[in-house]
């Protein structure tokens, strides 16, 4: 079972923002935002042709500034949000805005990769998320499975819930909350839980993880000192409602059950430098992807704490019954958590990794030098999980 070789794509600029085109479920498409202080920044729409192993790209100009974070609407393929730096009078402010890409690029195009760069198109600004009162935007997250009308942005110590109205041309601040405490509190990252009817958001600031209820904008749980150092990223298990993963500067990846915040369920220590990104696979939550500034991407199989701890045994409709037998069966059939693969195609720090929204066995990773690598889950494991 030969595994396909990774596909590498090089951007001309430094880059640290990567997202799959979330609303697209057929074609494999990623969006990458560049970071350049001197030239116009770009958003590369990267189409991956799975059958021929070919990458097609389209470039959109993003002239307002360098992109620190990018996220795509889960409902509309053409809509995306970026956090970008705006420099004015030697002051740097990170702003956020919602954009629409030209219609013809929404579903990709099959232009040859050479000629598109000359005729780069620009994004259409839908609305700014006004943050003059709140400070630097760290990230923007969309309500998962929603209609693309609700987003949350994190600005310094504020968590802001926006309603996008009039076909996203207007962003109205629906509610907000802020962290109070000693020192300068600053959110680093946040994710919106797909469970509980999308009413929960988790955020990271310093070494703490917090859960928020979006209806009341109040804190529902708090994991103090989740990591020894700064928490860089977190992600929700898409299939188990109380589970989330976090990673940080202590080189660790920790898995939490939010019902018991005193101790992580599991801790991984495979990286040797800061872990910048952690992502659960959207369908098979035992597959966990992490990217780190040790230039490595690690794919782990966390089967023992996944929703399928004994492999694919049961049909979807009797999963709930299974819950009772779980503990007994665990003793019978212990499955090993392990590192599936370490990908070393990057030569610089990897700041972003993510799974494709269309193909659950495919993921992309992006390093600072602008190298995007598309890899697949090893075939042997894929068949092992499926069969």
């Amino acid at each position, binding site marked *: 079972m030969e595994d396909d070789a990774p596909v590498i794509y090089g951007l001309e600029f430094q880059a640290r923002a990567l997202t799959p085109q979330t609303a697209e479920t057929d074609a494999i498409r990623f969006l990458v935002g560049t970071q*350049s202080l001197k030239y116009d920044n770009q958003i590369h729409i990267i189409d991956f042709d799975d059958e021929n192993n070919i990458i097609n790209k389209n470039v959109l100009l993003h002239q307002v500034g360098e992109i620190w974070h990018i996220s795509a609407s889960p409902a509309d393929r053409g809509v995306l949000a970026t956090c970008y*730096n705006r420099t004015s009078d030697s002051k740097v402010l990170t702003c956020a805005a919602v954009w629409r890409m030209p219609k013809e690029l929404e579903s990709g195009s099959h232009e040859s990769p050479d000629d598109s760069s000359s005729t780069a198109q620009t994004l259409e600004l839908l609305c700014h998320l006004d943050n003059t009162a709140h400070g630097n935007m760290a990230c923007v997250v969309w309500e998962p499975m929603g209609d693309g009308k609700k987003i949350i942005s994190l600005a310094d110590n504020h968590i802001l819930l926006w309603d996008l109205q009039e076909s996203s041309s207007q962003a109205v601040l629906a509610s907000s909350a802020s962290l109070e405490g000693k020192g300068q509190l600053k959110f680093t990252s946040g994710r919106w839980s797909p469970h509980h009817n999308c009413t929960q958001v988790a955020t990271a600031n310093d070494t703490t993880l917090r859960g928020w209820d979006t209806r009341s904008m109040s804190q529902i749980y708090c994991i103090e000192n989740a990591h020894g150092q700064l928490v860089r990223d977190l992600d929700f298990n898409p299939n188990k409602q109380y589970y989330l993963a976090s990673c940080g500067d202590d080189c660790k990846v920790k898995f939490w059950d939010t019902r018991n915040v005193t101790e992580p369920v599991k801790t991984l220590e495979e990286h040797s430098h800061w872990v910048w990104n952690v992502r659960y696979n959207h369908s098979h939550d035992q597959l966990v992807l992490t990217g780190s500034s040790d230039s490595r991407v690690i794919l782990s199989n966390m089967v023992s704490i996944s929703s399928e701890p004994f492999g694919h045994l049961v049909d979807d409709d009797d999963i709930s019954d299974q819950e009772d037998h779980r503990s007994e069966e665990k003793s019978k059939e212990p499955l090993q958590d392990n590192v599936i693969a370490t990908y070393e195609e990057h030569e610089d720090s990897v700041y972003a990794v993510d799974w494709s929204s269309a193909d659950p066995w495919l993921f992309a990773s992006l390093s*600072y030098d*602008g190298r995007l690598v598309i890899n697949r889950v090893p075939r042997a494991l894929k068949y092992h999980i499926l069969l």
Partner: protein
Amino acid sequence: MAPGSASSPSPSFPASRPWAAVGTMAAAAAAGPSPGSGPGDSPEGPEGEAPERRRKAHGMLKLYYGLSEGEAAGRPAGPDPLDPTDLNGAHFDPEVYLDKLRRECPLAQLMDSETDMVRQIRALDSDMQTLVYENYNKFISATDTIRKMKNDFRKMEDEMDRLATNMAVITDFSARISATLQDRHERITKLAGVHALLRKLQFLFELPSRLTKCVELGAYGQAVRYQGRAQAVLQQYQHLPSFRAIQDDCQVITARLAQQLRQRFREGGSGAPEQAECVELLLALGEPAEELCEEFLAHARGRLEKELRSLEAELGPSPPAPDVLEFTDRGGSGFVGGLCQVAAAYQELFAAQGPAGAEKLAAFARELGSRYFALVERRLAQEQGGGDNSLLVRALDRFHRRLRAPGALLAAAGLADAATEIVERVARERLGHHLQGLRAAFLGCLTDVRQALAAPRVAGKEGPGLAELLANVASSILSHIKASLAAVHLFTAKEVSFSNKPYFRGEFCSEGVREGLIVGFIRSMCQTAQSFCDSPGEKGGATPPALLLLLSRLCLDYETATISYILTLTDEQFLVQVGLLYEEGVRKAQSSDSSKRTFSVYSSSRQQGRYAPSYTPSAPMDTNLLSNIQKLFSERIDVFSPVEFNKVSVLTGIIKISLKTLLECVRLRTFGRFGLQQVQVDCHFLQLYLWRFVADEELVHLLLDEVVASAALRCPDPVPMEPSVVEVICERG
């Protein structure tokens, strides 16, 4: 045959689609591993024979696909295995089948099935023929090969027969030759035996004269060896008069020999090795070991006591004692060396004595050793007043080192332990001595201060100010402390043989030096100061307030800074000795002048910073191109390689990770022009000082280059500072 089963969509064709499978079966049989149905049984009565044959082929096919008979039949879609009308079933009965067909089918269908059957039988036949034709050549060649093999084997058989007869002949000859030679062989053996016996006898007869000669010549060793060789034989044959005579002669001579040896042994003057030889010979002559042992030790005692006496004489009250180093030297070479020799010889000679002998020796060594130690201690006690630690430490080192050899020989006597104990005691006493010295110094300082304060002021000439006095006191105390620490530190020097003893590794440093000496001194200082305060001027000599003021200030200073400084100093010297415990490790390309090498290694990043603005507007690729080219030529750094346990490796790891962290932090910022320049200066400064801590300074350069390059990228207005300016700034620090 049931029509339903013929049209069954099930893929398991052997069971459910018998007719359609026939053609395939033949093909499978042709291709399969067993070409079973031979060409011989070609069908004569197609209706009758074919099903039989087919069943056979069908069975093989099932075998080929790994299906058991039952399994194949067990499929739900398959027909009943016992059905006699199943053409492919095991229980197929042609009669029943025909009967069933005739009864159930209309004529047209009967005709159809008949033609169908005939057609398929023909096809089978032709397939079989093809098979035979195809394999005909192979059969022919196989037959040829077999025939040829038969011929060859016949020839080989003949040759084997010839070989067997030849071998028989050879065996026969060989047996005859041995028989012929047998006789002579025996005779030769006998003669040789007689010869050897005669030689032995000759030796015996010559023995007395030889022994006499040996004794005359003084070759005692040779004589004893002869005696030893002959004794057993003489003992055995003493009933024969001639042997008896020889034995008597020998005994007389041996007795004389023993006499002489004893004589020599008692004279004793001829040194330990010769004595040992005498004892060895006497033992070989069968003298009683017990007695010899006693005598040997008595002699040794005499010699060693002489050594001790001479040492004691040196120690004596009147004559100027030689310095302690010389004393321990002499003791080491004289007494300890002698003891070593005695012990070694004793253990070699009286090894047969077992534990009792060893115990005797140990007791001997213990007794003499304790006397020696008493002498050494007396001598060391004389040293106690002296101030020079280095001589004392060297003497102790010599003393301790000398005693390690007998220590190994005489583990039971516990000499090494006793020696270590003495060294420890001395070290402890030295610590006490230093503490006394420090106290005295402190009191001396105070007296000076008092005097200075009490000195009558000469008009117009201001006495020394209080601040000055305070500074004097503080510095003089500090220098005394430092001197004491340095002196005491000699005890833990690496090359001193006892420094690796547990006492000197742990207790001496923590309890002795830190607690006992330094903390003890500080305590006594406090006490002294306290006593000044407490004693109201009842004896008339009231404490001058200025002195109290000065003392209070001194104590305050000590509380805020000095104590922690002194303790840190002590800890550094005595406790935290990573560098001593861990080896240096290998350092690559260690160039002391690399600190002078300022910006040469920086050129790449500097050039990039400088050229980027001029090159890039035309092509936005260039920054990346440049850094990529730069990366091409520099090896990839593995920032997180595992660390070995030595100083350099650990430091290298720490520095690499720190620089990587710096890099990541730089990348998260946006720099103004001056921010970039600050990073430049910082990196240059780090470059000047970090190289000496790492295994490969190239690493530091590469990482720092990357930091500067990243900072340049993160700066919208990258105007790097002139290298010469950077240098000047860094060198000023």
